[in-house]
């Protein structure tokens, strides 16, 4: 097997992390985390500010190398094959904006090109997407003229336009009104139903309930990982907010 072939992970595993660690000098930002994420799963990646979520996510996206430990995303090694990973993932954050001075279709065209979507598929897929979102009339509108909630939906749709194996969502719903936040989660469900794996961070604990499984990071470690139902049972908690408080209260690192 050549170095650049994907490793043999079980077919239904999209992320596999083994003792993944990142140190900055004598500070261990991510401390031996191990977990798996299955195809089509909605995986909630929770933790207090400063717990190490962003550092872990950057490694999984191929943007930074681990100090020790390993991880494979979509079958590729994060340290050796980060370019292959970047082609197979989508990424969206609240801060990651579309180009405000480009029209809606131009933004889609741009990202589709960057991610290598075949030329002839782009136009029909664009129309299909705009139809699904109910944005047909906004095709030629400048992105800056859209309401925030629409931008976020469009931003998510652009992030999965190239049908990645997995999409990383970094606090995608921050600052959005409650109704739009819920519509956004319905888009997430639809993507997961199509087999796209969702890896999402959020500070809204009601959104943690919408995930299939949730991990909670404390001081660089994953201190809990299970379905919301099981976590609530294990911590005798009414809701995920209580689970989170029980775990994160013990953190030594303060955000």
């Amino acid at each position, binding site marked *: 097997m050549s170095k650049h072939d994907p490793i043999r992970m079980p077919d239904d595993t999209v992320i596999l992390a083994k003792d993944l660690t990142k140190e900055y000098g004598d500070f261990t930002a991510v401390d031996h985390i191990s977990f798996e994420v299955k195809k089509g799963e909605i995986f909630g990646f929770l933790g207090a500010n400063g*717990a190490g979520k962003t550092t872990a996510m950057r490694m999984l996206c191929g943007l930074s190398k681990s100090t020790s430990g390993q991880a494979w995303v979509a079958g590729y090694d994060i340290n050796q094959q980060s370019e292959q990973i970047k082609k197979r993932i989508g990424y969206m954050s609240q801060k990651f904006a579309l180009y405000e001075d480009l029209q809606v279709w131009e933004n889609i065209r741009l990202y589709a090109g960057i991610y290598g979507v075949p030329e002839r598929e782009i136009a029909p897929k664009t129309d299909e997407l705009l139809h699904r979102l109910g944005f047909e009339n906004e095709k030629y509108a400048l992105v800056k003229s859209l309401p925030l909630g629409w931008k976020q939906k469009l931003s998510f749709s652009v992030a999965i336009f190239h049908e990645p194996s997995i999409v990383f969502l970094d606090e995608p719903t*921050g600052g*959005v*009104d409650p*109704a739009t936040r819920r519509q956004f989660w319905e888009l997430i469900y639809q993507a997961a139903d199509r087999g796209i794996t969702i890896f999402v961070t959020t500070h809204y604990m009601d959104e943690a309930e*919408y995930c299939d499984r949730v991990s909670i990071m404390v001081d660089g470690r994953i201190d809990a990982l299970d379905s919301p139902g099981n976590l609530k049972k294990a911590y005798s908690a009414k*809701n995920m907010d209580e689970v989170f408080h029980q775990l*994160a*209260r013990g953190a030594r690192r303060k*955000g």
Partner: protein
Amino acid sequence: MVSTSAINTKMLAIKAEHIFKKYKKVQALNGVSLEVGEGEIFGIIGPDGAGKTTLFRILTTLILADEGTASVNGFDVVKQYRNIRECVGYMPGRFSLYQDLTVEENLTFFATVFRTTIEENYELIKDIYVQIEPFKTRKAGALSGGMKQKLALCCALIHKPTVLFLDEPTTGVDPVSRKEFWNMLKRLKKQGIAILVSTPYMDEASLCDRIALIQNGQFLKTDTPQNIVSEFGTELWSVKSNQMSKLLNDLRRFEAVDTCFAFGDTHHITFKGTPPTVEELTDFLHTLGHKYVYIRPIEANVEDCFMRLSGKTLQS
């Protein structure tokens, strides 16, 4: 006649009447009025782009309203802006301290600008400052999010303001740190400081004395959180089954259902006209293959109220 003394509105920390503000084509504020009493925590709750920051900037005398009047501590925001700047503390939504100065240098700088010293008002910030004091020689730019927030609050408090403006102090902050931050606000309130605070987190509404729900530059409602919740005005049910994603769509297909939203591990529904009986809805869901159907009437929370008042539905 303009006088520098506070006259008519002596008991009010903040008073705003019919404030309008337009940026080119966007009507950022569309006739907003509010009154905040001494020692009151008043929350402005609403999403990004609703007009929260514009209102803060008008009240802190940074921009002018197109129409309407406002006063802080009895001082007019236009004619007596200098008096207002002396007596208010303002923590903007974006971190705006000097990244290249240390924690201590930032605090000293703000104290000096207001002709005071850290020592003079140390009591007021003590509770918060002790948490960042171990890092006082660290540059502000190198602090974590939670610590930046604490430093910003200290800098906004160092001249002993009587009115505090906090624009989204907890956005992007995790639930545990958010709770700690609100505890700090409660302690400040006890010292008689009036606090106007904005947030997109609906669960923080219950921590305020009174709140205004804001959307598209207008207040949808202003009242105590308890009154807002008790005036929800219609039946609200919580529904669960073994297939939550399918349940969302199936509930929307039920004739009498008006709105249906996911709420954590349950869905919340309201009805057009008279609600069905629990048995009718349960039977309907059973025929569609749902198991473990669990339905119960519940009390609304602030987020339910916000969605109802903002009139959005997910029927599309």
